[in-house]
C-alpha cells in the first residue's frame, strides 16, 4: 500500500494498532511545518529540537495510551501541543523571546532548491536570514498568528479558538503581520537603493 495516499487519521489508526512505520510516515509528512513553527517562536535551533522531540513524546504517549480523540485533525492537534510546550518554556524562563539571528544557521536546510550556484545559494540564504529577522521584529501577537496560519496550517477559526480571540481579531492580526512584513521589506529595498 502506498503510504503517501493514506490519510493522517488512517496512519494514526495503523500506529495505534501496532504498526510503528505509520509513525515514521506521520513524522516525515509534518516535521517541517512543526519544526519551522517551533523554531520561529523560540529562535534557537537547539531549543526548537528539544521542544520538537518533547512534542512527539507527548503525541506517542497519548496515542499509545489510546487517549487520542481528535479525529481528522492530527496536525492541528500536534501544533497545539507544540505551542503549549513553547508557552510552558517561556513561563519557566520567565522571559519573552529575544530577537537574535545568530543561531542555527548551519543546521537548517531549506528545501526545494537544486543545482544552484554558490552565489545563488548565498543570496538565497541571505534572503531567508533577512526574512526570519523581519518575522522576529513583528509584535508577538502578529507573529504568533502568522506562524500558526502560514507554517502550522491551522485555520483562522482554529487559531481564534487556540488564542481565545474572535476570528476577525485573528484575521486582523494576520493582515497587520503581512502588511508590516511588506513595509519592512520595501523599506529595506529603498535603503539599499539610496545607498547605491
Amino acid at each position: 500500500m502506498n503510504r503517501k495516499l493514506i490519510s493522517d487519521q488512517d496512519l494514526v489508526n495503523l500506529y495505534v494498532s501496532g504498526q510503528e512505520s505509520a509513525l515514521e510516515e506521520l513524522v516525515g509528512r509534518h516535521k517541517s511545518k512543526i519544526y519551522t513553527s517551533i523554531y520561529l517562536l523560540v529562535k534557537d535551533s537547539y531549543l526548537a529540537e528539544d521542544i520538537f522531540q518533547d512534542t512527539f513524546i507527548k503525541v506517542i504517549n497519548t496515542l499509545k495510551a489510546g487517549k487520542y480523540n481528535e479525529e481528522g485533525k492530527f496536525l492541528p492537534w500536534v501544533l497545539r501541543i507544540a505551542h503549549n510546550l513553547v508557552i510552558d518554556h517561556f513561563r519557566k524562563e520567565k522571559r519573552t523571546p529575544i530577537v537574535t539571528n545568530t543561531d542555527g544557521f548551519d543546521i537548517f536546510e531549506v528545501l526545494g532548491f537544486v543545482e544552484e550556484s554558490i552565489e545563488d545559494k548565498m543570496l538565497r540564504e541571505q534572503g531567508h536570514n533577512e526574512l526570519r529577522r523581519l518575522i522576529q521584529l513583528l509584535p508577538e501577537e502578529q507573529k504568533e498568528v502568522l506562524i500558526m496560519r502560514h507554517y502550522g496550517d491551522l485555520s483562522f477559526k482554529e487559531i481564534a479558538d487556540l488564542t481565545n480571540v474572535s476570528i476577525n481579531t485573528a484575521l486582523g492580526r494576520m493582515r497587520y503581520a503581512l502588511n508590516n512584513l511588506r513595509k519592512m521589506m520595501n523599506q529595506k529595498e529603498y535603503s539599499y537603493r539610496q545607498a547605491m
Partner: protein
Amino acid sequence: MVQTFTQNDIIKALYHELPASEMVHLEEQLENDTEIQNNFEDLNVLKLKLDSLVLEPSMSVISSILDYSRSYKK
C-alpha cells in the same frame, strides 16, 4: 448588486478560506479594481517568499523519537 470585500476577506482568500461563491465575486472585483488587484498580488508574492522559508529538524532528533516509540512500554 455590487459586493464589497473587507481586508479580512482578502486575507481569507489568500489562504483559501473564502467560500467558493464569494471567491467568484472577489475575482470579478479584482479584475475591475487595480488597487485591490495590486494589493492581492503583493500579498501573494510575500506568501511565496514565506513558503520558501522551510526549516528541518536534524535526523538525530527524528531517530530519537522513533526509538522512543519502539521502546515504549505501557
